[in-house]
């Protein structure tokens, strides 16, 4: 742990267990069923019982169309019969990892000891195999932030992110072949992951010949809606004595939003809120980008992963395309493996928390065929896109 004056958590927050439900398309189970499965697995993985859980946190909470939330915090509180001192379900925070960061603060402050954190999606079933935007197709009037995009035939984040990607290509010469390395790397890792949704090998030709969705993004640049849930237990370090796991320490967290929460007014269209929150995160730790062993970075759309790579400081601004070119550096056997479970592009759109889950799996060396051979002591985890972003640095250091 860091002696840095800006340190927020002082090593007091650890991941003590993780769990994932069955994940897939058309598996015929309810969101609450899958979420309960992931939660009970995580609790058992930590060596705890549901009665040990005194905090509960999830993104984004309930009441969303299109299966964006498979279960709310209070639904899971009820079905698992929990007794908590603190619970939270919100989407208005530093991305999908926001509630997990709040759970870290809650345990570090001594408010609670073991927080059950989950992210649940039921998008495949709710959308009947179509897209999230399809759930808005019957809307005839758009308000709030959709007022500015839906009238222009742009109801999907694929368009909003394509606009950023096009500008980055214009300014820095990013090519489709470079961008392809995100999808190809994820697929190569998913081939080795029995829980991934898409496991057939993918070639550069497959990628370049895929149907365009929102130019310059093609089908394989967009993640795949699925049903499933991920849970992690965030514990107060002092409360983990005697538990089976060597807890993964949360070194630093970042949720800064230094510009307006919009998709089109950011001053520099070649950066995102990811750049804001990583700045805050690095100030809390003595660790440097060169200390990071693996990258578990959000790929709801492939271009977002390039943004996270440069936001974390693994390369200079504008260099992300050249950094991933050829794919060797970010492969499982490379210097800085990326999205070792297959990401969301091939592993399934578990929406953010899957990256923290996989970082812990790799640190505990339980990745099976996809386990990174080298020691994994520090992992970078980032989730979100556009004005939505949150990041964490986790390690095996005591």
């Amino acid at each position: 742990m860091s002696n840095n004056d800006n340190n927020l958590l002082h090593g007091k927050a650890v991941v003590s267990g993780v769990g994932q439900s069955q994940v897939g398309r058309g598996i015929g189970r309810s969101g609450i069923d899958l979420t309960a499965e992931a939660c009970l697995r995580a609790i058992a993985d930590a060596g705890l019982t549901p009665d040990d859980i005194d905090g509960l946190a999830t993104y984004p909470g309930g009441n969303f169309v299109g299966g964006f939330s498979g279960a709310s915090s209070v639904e899971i509180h009820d079905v698992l019969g929990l007794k908590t001192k603190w619970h939270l379900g919100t989407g208005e925070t530093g991305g999908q990892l926001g509630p997990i960061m709040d759970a870290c603060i809650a345990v570090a402050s001594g408010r609670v000891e073991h927080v059950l954190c989950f992210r649940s999606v039921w998008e495949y079933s709710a959308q009947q195999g179509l897209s999230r935007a399809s759930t808005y197709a019957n809307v005839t009037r758009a308000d709030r932030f959709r007022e500015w995009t839906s009238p222009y035939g742009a109801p999907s984040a694929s368009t909003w992110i394509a606009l950023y990607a096009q500008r980055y290509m214009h300014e820095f010469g990013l090519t489709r072949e470079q961008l392809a390395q995100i999808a190809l790397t994820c697929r190569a890792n998913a081939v080795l992951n029995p829980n991934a949704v898409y496991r057939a090998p993918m070639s550069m030709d497959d990628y370049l010949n895929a149907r365009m969705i929102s130019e310059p993004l093609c089908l394989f640049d967009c993640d795949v809606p699925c049903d499933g849930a991920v849970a992690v237990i965030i514990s107060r370090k002092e409360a983990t004595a005697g538990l089976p796991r060597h807890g993964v320490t949360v070194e630093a967290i970042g949720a800064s939003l230094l510009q307006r929460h919009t998709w089109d007014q950011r001053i520099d269209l070649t950066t995102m809120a990811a750049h804001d929150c990583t700045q805050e995160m690095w100030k809390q730790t003595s660790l440097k980008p060169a200390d990071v062993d693996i990258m578990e970075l959000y790929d709801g759309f492939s271009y977002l992963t390039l943004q996270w790579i440069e936001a974390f400081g693994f390369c200079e601004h504008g260099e992300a395309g050249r950094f991933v070119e050829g794919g060797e550096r970010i492969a499982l056997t490379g210097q800085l493996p990326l999205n070792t479970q297959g990401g969301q592009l091939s592993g399934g759109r578990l929406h953010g928390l899957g990256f923290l889950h996989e970082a812990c799996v790799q640190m505990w060396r339980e990745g099976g065929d996809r386990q990174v051979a080298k020691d994994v002591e520090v992992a970078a985890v980032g989730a979100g896109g556009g004005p939505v972003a949150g990041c964490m640095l986790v390690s095996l250091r005591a």
Partner: protein
Amino acid sequence: MSEQLYVPPELRVLPDPSMESKAFWTGGAEGQLLIYRCRACTQFFHPPAPVCFRCRSTNVGPEAVSGRATVATYSINRHPWYPSFPPPYIVAIVEIDEQPDVRLTTNIVGCSMEAIHVGMQVEVLFEHCDDVWIPLFKPSDPYAAIESASTSNETSPA
């Protein structure tokens, strides 16, 4: 050469204007693109809001701008999100001439898919649907609308 023909979609999802955005969506009735401006710091901003996010003055309101803008970025949309709005069509972010950090997400119409490029000069037009006038943009130079981007003058990054 003639201007690219623009055929409006059968149906757009229309905005449900707020008290602040009503001017933006109805200014087209008078042929005006109305953008919120702060009378204290004189800066424009978008989307419209009751407070200037820069200086926090509440002395703000809609003001007509020239309607001339530059394409900051674009995406050729190929996926049929709406049955009544068939692809391909161009979604773009444009920067208004008066103040380039004020951007509008919009459609570029009357422009071929080959001709659209970052840096293209465009001007507003309005599509009247029910009680709103949707601001759209078209190339200022009708020749640029059909000339492929690779043969036009290279534009430098802003």
